[in-house]
């Protein structure tokens, strides 16, 4: 299984690891950009994406995550399909109406348990190499 490689988004010299993803549910798909955040345990997307897919986001498993100002926000976990280039898998994704940044966040669940991820700042690339024998461990 070959690696997936994306260039950083570069704005005013600042490099950001934004990658394109597909989110799917019952054969309905949405394409979004997400910020690869190695410091985030969960992935958090805006609730509008859940609504578009036909999910009632409030019915997901509610967990609280701590954000930068020390506060806690609720996110609602749903199992959706995720497409990363040619790779497709089912994963737990969080949705929140309290995500205070304009970026969707893709964290260790589900990305880092399925891919070895290299942030290559010198080349301006993020490289995702799939594990050959993935198991959900996190």
């Amino acid at each position, binding site marked *: 299984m070959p690696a997936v490689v994306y260039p950083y988004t570069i704005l005013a010299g600042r490099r950001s690891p934004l990658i*394109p993803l597909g989110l799917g549910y019952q054969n309905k798909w949405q394409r979004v950009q997400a910020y690869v955040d190695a410091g985030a345990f969960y992935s958090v997307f805006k609730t509008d994406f859940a609504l578009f897919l036909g999910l009632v986001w409030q019915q997901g498993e509610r967990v609280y995550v701590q954000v930068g100002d020390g506060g806690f926000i609720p996110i609602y976990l749903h199992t959706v399909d995720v497409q990363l280039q040619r790779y497709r898998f089912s994963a737990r994704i969080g949705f929140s109406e309290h995500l205070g940044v*304009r970026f969707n966040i893709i964290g260790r669940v589900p990305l880092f348990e399925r891919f070895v991820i290299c942030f290559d700042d010198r080349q301006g690339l993020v490289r995702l190499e799939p594990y050959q024998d993935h198991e959900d461990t996190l």
Partner: protein
Amino acid sequence: MMEEVDFVEDMDSDDLWLKSHIEDIVDRYAHKVIAILDQQIVGVGTSIAELQQTVAAHYPQRVPLIFEVPTREEFECLL
């Protein structure tokens, strides 16, 4: 379980187009939401939900790339 399967759209070309035009897009569309399809902007809205409705009506069989455009400051001040 992970499988290899083609997506309904080319996953990379719109992403590369967005990244190559990010300076112009941020200057022009900060605080807006844009939809990109076939390396061009096919919709602009003030919210994700509004844009999804508009684009779905015009491109019912397609899956555009939705991007909420940050400001320069938001890009530069990310942790």
